[in-house]
Structure formats: structure tokens, C-alpha cells
């Protein structure tokens, strides 16, 4: 059942569930930060409307900096701010930032330990009709691999606002992952957010499988869970909203409860959140894992819901993954499928 201690959205499973894009939460948080913290500055690379930084720009024009289509310049300028007492937020599509400017982020922000928060927008296939060139499906991997980088991947617009406000409290580099389309509200203002703790959204005494999901696909995981419950298959669902630093203890504890894991993300399987889970478990509690994510392929143009269905990221795909892992034995004997990793 839904974890009552988390005050989750009771209308979560209704067809009338409220939908809001995570980028809205980001925009709202920036305005609040602008009002409460005079050291916050915001930069964008010609994408103020779609990254929702334009509200901040209107209210605090002297602290808003438009660099034009120049993502490397944007993050390096931010790096200069971040070592001189400012808290700098940069905003662009994730394919461009951290995509195009990855090395600049590495040198001037991560290695330099500058107080910069990088917002990567339009992440995942959810970006839709723009197609693969604009769907960032590698950004978690790019940021995971950098030392000193905190990574937040919020599950809805309310959590998106919380992670943005939280980012400002951290003294150091942070990556924030947002999406374009409207997605269901899963939490409420009362839902606690602790960046060091992975919360369990669907609890179970005796789960057969533990699902770790990140971002808006947590909703698809919950849909799958409801269907599985109706068929007597009990699972546990956890929200991985902080991908780095890693909450090792909770991951091990939750995996131990069932002995089998499914991970869910709108991202390549290689190097994503699922990889992070695998790294923890391989070292501490070797567990069979089934990864739901992009299997080494780019996306394409289409409507978001069409795409997550075609690329096997939706509730049906998650249900299939659960059944597949249930068929695998726990413990030492693991059977490789056909020879391909995917």
C-alpha cells in the first residue's frame, strides 16, 4: 500500500490525477530563492521560457544572465560566480548542458568545487516530438561519473521544487534533472524530503521484488505495482530522488527484504541509476537485477506516452520485468540470457 507516513497524493490512481511538469517546480523554487537569498543568480542559454527561468528573470533582472546559445560560456561564467560568494543556477536542455559542456563542468565546477547548480531540462524520452537529438538519455551517467557532484532526480513538480531549494543549501556542485511534459503529482507539500534518504512509496511486509524508480516513471512503477498486487504478487517501490551521494544502507536494506530488484529510469541502462544500484549490491549483497531503461538505443520523435510504451519503460514493461526476475533463482546460480547483455 501507499506509505501513509509520506502523505502521498491520495488521487494518485484516479484518472483525474493532477498533472504538472517538474520544470514548473524548478521555476517556482527559483522565484522563492530570489526573494529569500540575494546571492542566488540564474543563467540561461536562450531557453528562459522552456526552462521556466523567465519568472525569476522578470522579478530579479539584475541577477539574471542570458548568454545566448553558448552553454560552455554559461557554466564557466557560473563557475566564476560560484567561487565569489554567489549561488549560481544554470539552465538549458540536458543534451546541451551537461551534454555539450561536460568538460567545462568537469574542470570549472566539479574539480574547481564551485557553488553551481546545473539544471538539465527536457530529460529522457518524455521530451517527445523534438526527437532523439533533444531527448537526454545519458545525462545521469555523465554526472554520476564526476566527483563532488550531487544529483537530484525528482519524481514530480512538488519534489522538483524541494530539490531546487535543497540544492541552494548545499555548498558545492549539484545536478538537477527535469522533464518537459506534464506528469502526475505523486507527493504533497507535507511529504518529507531528505536528500540522504531513499523513501519507500509503496510498502509491503513481504515483498517478492523491490523496485527502485527515479523521476516521473515512479508513477508507472506504482501503476504496475497496483496490477501486480491484484494478482497476489507483492512488491515494494522506492523513490530514488537522490542518485548521488548514494544511500547505500537503504538500498541494501530494501534489496534484502525481497532478494530481487528491478530498476526503472527514463535513461540508458548503461551508467544510469540502475547501474548505481547494481554497484552497491554487487559489492555488498549480490542480487539479481532487471533494468528497465533504454537498452543501448536512442529514442525518436513521438508523443511521450507512445514513446515510453514503444521503448519499454511503461507500467506494462515494468510488470514484465517483475515477472521476469521472479522467474530467476536467487543466490549463486544466475542464468545468462542469449549472450547479449540486453
Amino acid at each position, binding site marked *: 500500500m501507499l506509505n501513509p507516513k509520506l502523505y502521498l497524493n491520495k488521487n494518485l490512481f484516479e484518472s483525474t490525477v493532477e498533472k504538472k511538469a517538474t520544470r514548473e517546480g524548478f521555476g517556482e523554487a527559483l522565484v522563492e530563492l530570489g526573494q529569500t537569498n540575494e546571492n542566488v*543568480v540564474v543563467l540561461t542559454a536562450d531557453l528562459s521560457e522552456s526552462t521556466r527561468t523567465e519568472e525569476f528573470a522578470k522579478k530579479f533582472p*539584475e*541577477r539574471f*544572465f542570458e*548568454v*545566448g546559445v*553558448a552553454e*560552455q*560560456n554559461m557554466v*564557466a*561564467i*557560473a*563557475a*566564476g*560566480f*560560484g*567561487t*565569489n*560568494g*554567489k549561488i*549560481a543556477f544554470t539552465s538549458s536542455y540536458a543534451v546541451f548542458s551537461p551534454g555539450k559542456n561536460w*568538460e*567545462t563542468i568537469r*574542470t*570549472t565546477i566539479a*574539480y*574547481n*568545487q564551485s557553488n553551481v547548480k546545473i539544471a538539465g531540462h527536457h530529460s529522457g524520452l518524455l521530451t517527445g516530438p523534438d526527437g532523439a537529438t533533444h531527448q537526454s538519455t545519458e545525462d545521469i551517467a555523465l554526472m554520476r561519473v564526476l566527483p563532488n557532484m550531487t544529483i537530484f532526480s525528482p519524481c514530480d513538480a512538488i519534489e522538483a521544487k524541494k530539490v531546487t531549494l535543497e540544492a541552494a543549501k548545499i555548498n558545492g556542485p549539484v545536478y538537477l534533472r527535469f522533464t518537459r511534459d506534464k506528469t502526475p503529482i505523486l507527493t504533497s507539500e507535507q511529504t518529507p524530503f531528505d536528500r540522504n534518504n531513499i523513501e519507500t512509496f509503496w510498502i509491503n511486509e513481504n515483498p517478492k521484488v523491490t523496485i527502485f524508480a527515479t523521476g516521473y516513471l515512479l508513477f508507472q512503477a506504482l501503476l504496475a505495482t497496483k496490477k501486480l498486487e491484484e494478482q497476489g504478487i507483492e512488491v515494494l517501490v522506492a523513490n530514488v530522488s537522490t542518485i548521488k551521494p548514494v544511500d547505500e544502507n537503504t538500498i541494501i536494506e530494501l534489496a534484502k527484504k525481497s532478494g530481487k530488484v528491478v530498476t526503472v529510469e527514463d535513461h540508458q541502462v548503461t551508467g544510469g541509476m540502475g547501474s548505481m544500484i547494481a554497484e552497491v549490491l554487487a559489492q555488498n549483497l549480490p542480487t539479481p537485477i532487471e533494468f528497465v531503461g533504454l537498452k543501448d538505443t536512442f529514442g525518436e520523435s513521438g508523443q511521450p506516452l507512445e514513446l515510453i510504451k514503444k521503448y519499454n519503460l511503461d507500467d506494462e514493461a515494468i510488470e514484465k520485468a517483475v515477472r521476469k526476475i521472479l522467474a530467476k533463482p536467487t543466490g549463486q546460480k544466475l542464468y545468462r540470457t542469449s549472450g547479449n547483455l540486453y
Partner: protein
Amino acid sequence: MVLVLPYFYHTLLYFLCQTLVFFLNLIHAIKVSITLNAEKIKDLELKANQARQLVIEMLLTAGSGHAAGSLGMADIFTAFYFHILRHDPINPAWPDRDRLILSNGHICPIRYAAMAMSGYFPVEELKTLRKLGSRLQGHPHRTSLPGLETTSGPLGEGLSQAIGIALSAKLDKKNYQVYALTSDGEHEEGNTWEAIMFAGKNKLSNLTEVIDRNNIQIDGMTENIMPLEPLKAKYESFNWNVLEIDGNNIREFIDAVNQAKSVSEKPTVIIANTIPGMGVSFMEKDFVWHGKAPNSDEAKKALDELRTLQGRIRND
């Protein structure tokens, strides 16, 4: 006691403080210009020569490093650390300090030498360059050594960082100067031009850029690899004020920096024509020395030349 004064007197006190600060700055500026006499120039030239010797010794001990640019820029670094910069070597984080950003970080040996000579750390520490555990990293790392302002090495990122710092100064209503040192070669990186466009558009007058125009890069002469001329015209078309000088002439350089400070509606770039490897005859103008350190024979010859100013002073 101040709180007890009525509002009018509070404002008057504030106004008097601001006037005092203005006059202190004015006096400093006058001091700077009137004391730049021949004696001071000679002193700076001697220091530059000392710095060059330290660079050769450092590179020999390290066994690797970039000789040409470090030697070529010794005059400019000496001018900065011993005349131009308002700074405090004992307190490198002094909030009102001028900021010197080195974008072409590979010439850090000369920066480290100038910093040591001016008191940031003991000259002895220079021999730890590039060694395990050293504060003197092969390419400058901000958190390793106080006073560096940025981390650099990959080209094309320093000017942008300097812009962020210059914008911070404006937001904080601070008067410190921001100097960004770049190389000519790094103008081949696209992100350099992103920064140039931004600074020109935003009229960043507290920012002065200095280009080490030594005409060399790793694979050869800049004008053969990827020509940069007409560099002055390019900058002017991006709304910068451009000065071209002999970068190995200390007086010319200091005059150019002062000129830059007086321009308020544009950022200024000083194209400093330097001789790479300056001071060591067999290194001068040879691109091979861009990324090379001398071996002990070469270092001995180089130091002899520097100590005798290429034979102009006889040994006793």
C-alpha cells in the same frame, strides 16, 4: 554610538566615508603613476630576470612543463605581482583584492614563480612543481593553492570565469579589477568567442584581458596551424577596445593597463606581442619549446644566459 545619531548625521557619516575611500584610491592611482620611474622599471626588469631563472630551475627539477610561454610572460607577471595588482600575499583571500585569472594555465610555472617571489609562499616550495602531494599542480588548481582564483588548463574557459567574477563585483558594488590572461592559441577554441561576444555585449569595463600573442602553439606557428589575424579587427568588431603592445616591455605594458582602466564603456583587450622563450637564445621563437622542459645541460646553458643577460654581462 552611531545608532544613537539621528538619521541625517548617519547619512553624513556614510558620505564622508565614501569620499575618504575615493581619495585613498585617487592617491593610490597617483602613487602608481608618478613612481613608475626608470629606477622602478630597472627593478622590475631584474625581478623578471630572476623569475625566468626560477622557471628554468623549476622545470628542470620537475622534469616536465611548459618553458616557452612561461619565459615569454615573465615581464607581464612581474609587472602584475610587483606593481599593478592590489593584493595581499599574506592574505590571498582579501575580499577587495584585484583578481588575476590565468586561462592558459599551462604557463603556471611563471605564475608560481611570481607568487613565491612576492611572498605568497616560500621560494623553496617551487621545486615541488608537479610532484606528488604538491600545492603546485601541473595546471593551476584553485583549491590547491590560495591566490589562483580559478582552475585552468583546458583552453577557452578562463575568460568566461573572469566574466563571472567581474559580474560578481558589479553585483556586490565592489571596485576591484579583474584581469584575464589568455593565449593566442586558445582563440581557436569556440568557447573563447562565446566569452568575447558576451563581454562586448555587456560592456564589462572592470574586465581587462591580456593575450599572450607569442605566435606559437603545440604543432607549429599559429598562422600556419589556424591563422588568427586580423585579431585586432576581430575584437573591435565584437565591441572591445583593443591595445597592441610589446609584451616584453614592462613600461609599455603598465601604461596599457592604466589606459584600459580609463575606458568605461567597453572591455579592453591588450594584445601583448611576446617572444616565446624570451631570455634564452636557443628557446626563443621556437614552438618546440611550447611544452618542453630543459634537461640539465640545456638548463645550465639557459641559466648562464639569464645570469649574464645573454653575454652582455661578463662573468668574473
